[in-house]
């Protein structure tokens, strides 16, 4: 599902955020990405989302080489990858329902279909009753769950998360991680960047470790 081969990422200011990164993730696999602050976790996820481009090497997602994707095709590519952010990036000027509906709306789904899927996604994260509220009216954990609902509403085969539990207490964090595990159980490939080592160690998933932009431990595969 996901394959990095000798990927370098150098930012315009000359900083080398990733060096010679190679690893792959099987379809339906779930893995954590860890490392110190500044190790390059977010950078790696941004490459998968095409928010940044690799300087060297290849990133292949779902069999497609990302360097072959033209700027104009990026939106269509992104519709197949769900992303959850640490600060969830919800839009506060619209309802929970409208936030979750965004990925479907940009894809041009019809309103009836949108309604069905949004409610299904909200139901999965246990917040169906809050669809009419705005994100401000929700707690931090609830906001993050809305962010997850938005990421999965169009059933992407690949789900990415960058520090999804960064702002949450341990109990809430565990709940969130359980949600990701649920999605993985129904076949979604999941990659979560996190430095909450304690939480990660409680879960039976592969852990990829980055250090100074290099993979020092690829987990078990490769």
């Amino acid at each position: 599902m996901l394959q990095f081969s000798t990927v370098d990422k150098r930012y315009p200011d000359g900083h080398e955020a990733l060096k010679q990164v190679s690893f792959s993730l099987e379809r339906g696999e779930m893995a954590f990405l860890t490392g110190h602050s500044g190790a390059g976790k977010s950078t790696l996820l941004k490459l998968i989302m095409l928010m940044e481009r690799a300087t060297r090497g290849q990133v292949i997602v779902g069999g497609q080489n990302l360097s072959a994707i033209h700027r104009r095709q990026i939106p269509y590519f992104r519709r197949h990858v769900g992303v959850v952010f640490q600060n969830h990036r919800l839009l506060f000027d619209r309802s929970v329902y409208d936030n979750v509906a965004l990925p479907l709306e940009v894809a041009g789904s019809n309103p009836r279909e949108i309604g069905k899927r949004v409610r299904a996604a909200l139901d999965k994260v246990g917040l169906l009753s809050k669809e009419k509220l705005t994100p401000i009216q929700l707690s931090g954990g609830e906001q993050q769950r809305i962010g997850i609902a938005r990421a999965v509403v169009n059933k992407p085969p690949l789900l990415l998360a960058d520090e999804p539990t960064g702002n949450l207490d341990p109990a809430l964090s565990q709940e969130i991680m359980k949600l990701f595990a649920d999605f993985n159980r129904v076949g979604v490939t999941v990659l979560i960047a996190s430095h909450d080592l304690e939480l990660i160690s409680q879960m039976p998933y592969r852990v990829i470790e980055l250090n100074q932009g290099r993979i020092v431990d690829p987990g078990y595969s490769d």
Partner: protein
Amino acid sequence: MSSKRPASPVKKKVASGAQASGPSSALKGYFSNHLKVSKLSFKEQTDRPVATLLTCSVIGIALVLPTLLMILLSNIHAANFDWDGSAQITLFLEQKVTSKEAVELTRKLENRVDVSRIEFLDKDKALDDFKTQFQLESVVDFLDQNPLPHALLVTPSSTLKGVPAIEQLMQQLEALPEVESGLLDALWIQRLKSITSFLERVVVLIALMLALAVLLILGNTIRLAIENRKEEIAVLKLVGGTRPFVCRPFLYMGMLYGLGGSLIAVILTHIVLAILYAPIEALALSYQSNFNLKGLGFDSTLLLIVFGTALGWLGAWLAVRRHLDEIEPT
């Protein structure tokens, strides 16, 4: 638009995913998005009535001036059209030509194809008229002979188009031995025509400059709106919003500003015309013209609204083109 999706293997594996529904449902989604976005833009603008009214007013005022000049021009054209047909040549005959000879000449000239009508002005009658009209009996009686010549009033045939053709006719008539000189009262028509064509250019220039001003005003307004919605734009791009999708709200915003502006321009134009109506009527009357001020007709109103709305769209499009690509999610 959704047909441009790259043939992605990922896509095949999610065939049951978000875009699985047929083309008619995709079309429905597309139109429902347009409807939703236009409603949202409208609501957003009416939620800030003062700011919106100000922007629309600025656009409206910028549109009023060229509209009024356009109306002025079309009135001149209409008036000009009437006067064109009434260009007349006055032929003054030699002093020695008698009444009888003059009548004969009149008959002869009436047969010409390029002449539609000839009126013979007898010099004795002309002197009488002169006397009664200006109450100068004593002065005229003092003259021992009539100083006025016989005159013929020639109305050129309507097949003669334009002042040059009429001038040519006058030259031919002047060459006749009985004719001393001719007078074409069309010179001022020509002057008016050159003034009109000069005015036309002025109107075009002013319209262009003001259209540019409208574009700049709108561009700035839309730029601020984009600035205010940076996060929303970034998120839309992250969840797979295409450029047209992300642009759409701003284009609708521009169109609504343009529409509001042109509606204000229509109202202002009617107000200005109402104020100007009386003095123009009076002026026209003093020239004994049955001149009728033509206002902003239905067609022009429609044109103004369409033009204003299109201008709004264009302003927004230019702003979006410049500023939207700068916003990339980080």
